[in-house]
């Protein structure tokens, strides 16, 4: 375990501190399987670290085996949400086959508007699922695990992380290029290779303190 010892609480964290943390992890990654810990994780002394390591031994062992020789890539996709909603709205106006609420009182008009909005949102989500599915099937060919988040904002179609074997990461990057080129009007972001931050699975919660007492250790 790589730690930094300090006695005074660190209150002002700078960008260079975060990058230093990342650099330590990435240097270690060149030679070992690393279980990265979130930046600014603080323990109250050596005893706390040893006891934590003992109680999480099985979890750490499992993760070390699982994450051996693997890295993480992040993919984000922005889609033209406004255009897509507009086209759904237009197609709804054209199609008359759907059941609608008969016009009448103010209450029924209100329900009619809500129903229209509900249907547009349902279709919007369906379209999102369809696009994500196409992309994910392709990316998953080159990855061993993944975590996907759909529509974190209306524009952010996909926010995903993929766990990729080191010797397949060029393939993964090629897959990204292919998907990017085949989706005009979409905006793509690829980041990595990163330490496997999103794929370390611990069954038990790590107990740590953000306010150090005497001697504390910053874990990398």
């Amino acid at each position, binding site marked *: 375990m790589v730690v930094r010892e300090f006695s005074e609480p660190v209150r002002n964290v700078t960008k260079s501190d975060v*990058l230093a943390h*990342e*650099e330590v992890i*990435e*240097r270690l*990654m060149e030679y070992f399987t690393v279980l990265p810990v979130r930046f600014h994780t603080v323990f109250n002394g050596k005893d706390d670290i040893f006891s934590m390591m003992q109680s999480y031994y099985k979890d750490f062992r499992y993760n070390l085996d699982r994450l051996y020789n693997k890295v993480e890539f992040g993919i*984000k996709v*922005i889609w033209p949400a406004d255009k897509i909603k507009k086209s759904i709205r237009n197609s709804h106006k054209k199609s008359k086959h759907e*059941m609608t*609420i*008969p016009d*009448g*009182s*103010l*209450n*029924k*008009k*209100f*329900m009619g508007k*809500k*129903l229209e909005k*509900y*249907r547009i949102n349902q279709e919007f989500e369906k379209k999102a699922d369809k696009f994500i599915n196409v992309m994910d099937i392709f990316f998953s060919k080159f990855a061993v695990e993944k975590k996907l*988040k759909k529509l*974190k*904002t209306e*524009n*952010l179609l996909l926010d995903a992380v993929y766990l990729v074997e080191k010797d397949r990461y060029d393939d993964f990057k090629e897959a990204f290029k292919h998907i990017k080129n085949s989706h005009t009007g979409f*905006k*793509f*972001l*690829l*980041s*990595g*290779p*990163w330490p496997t931050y999103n794929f370390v699975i611990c069954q038990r919660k790590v107990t740590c303190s953000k306010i150090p007492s005497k001697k504390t250790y910053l874990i990398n």
Partner: protein
Amino acid sequence: MTINGVVETDFPEEFIEEMEKTNDVLPKKIDANPENVEKGLSKLVLTLIELIRKLLEKQAMRRVEAGSLSEDEIERMGETLMKLENKMKELKQIFGLEDEELNLNLGPLGDLM
């Protein structure tokens, strides 16, 4: 930049903007003081009411879609939902809250709404 990790995109500003939108709903720390405690509390309560209101609305739409509501029931449901929505607008105005502020981050489960 880090040693190995790189970020490749032709649209960095757009991605920053979208990520900032997702960060806005996540409080970096709980800032409870006499000046804002009322707003903080009302935000929490209104978020839960808004969640229930949205669930009710969704359920109502599902029932309308399924055709399981009579005209009279649609009428009454419309009135109820409209009153609820107006009341929420009123309360949001009183406590100076915007729609985007009514959310809770549930950690690994994601956002509440």
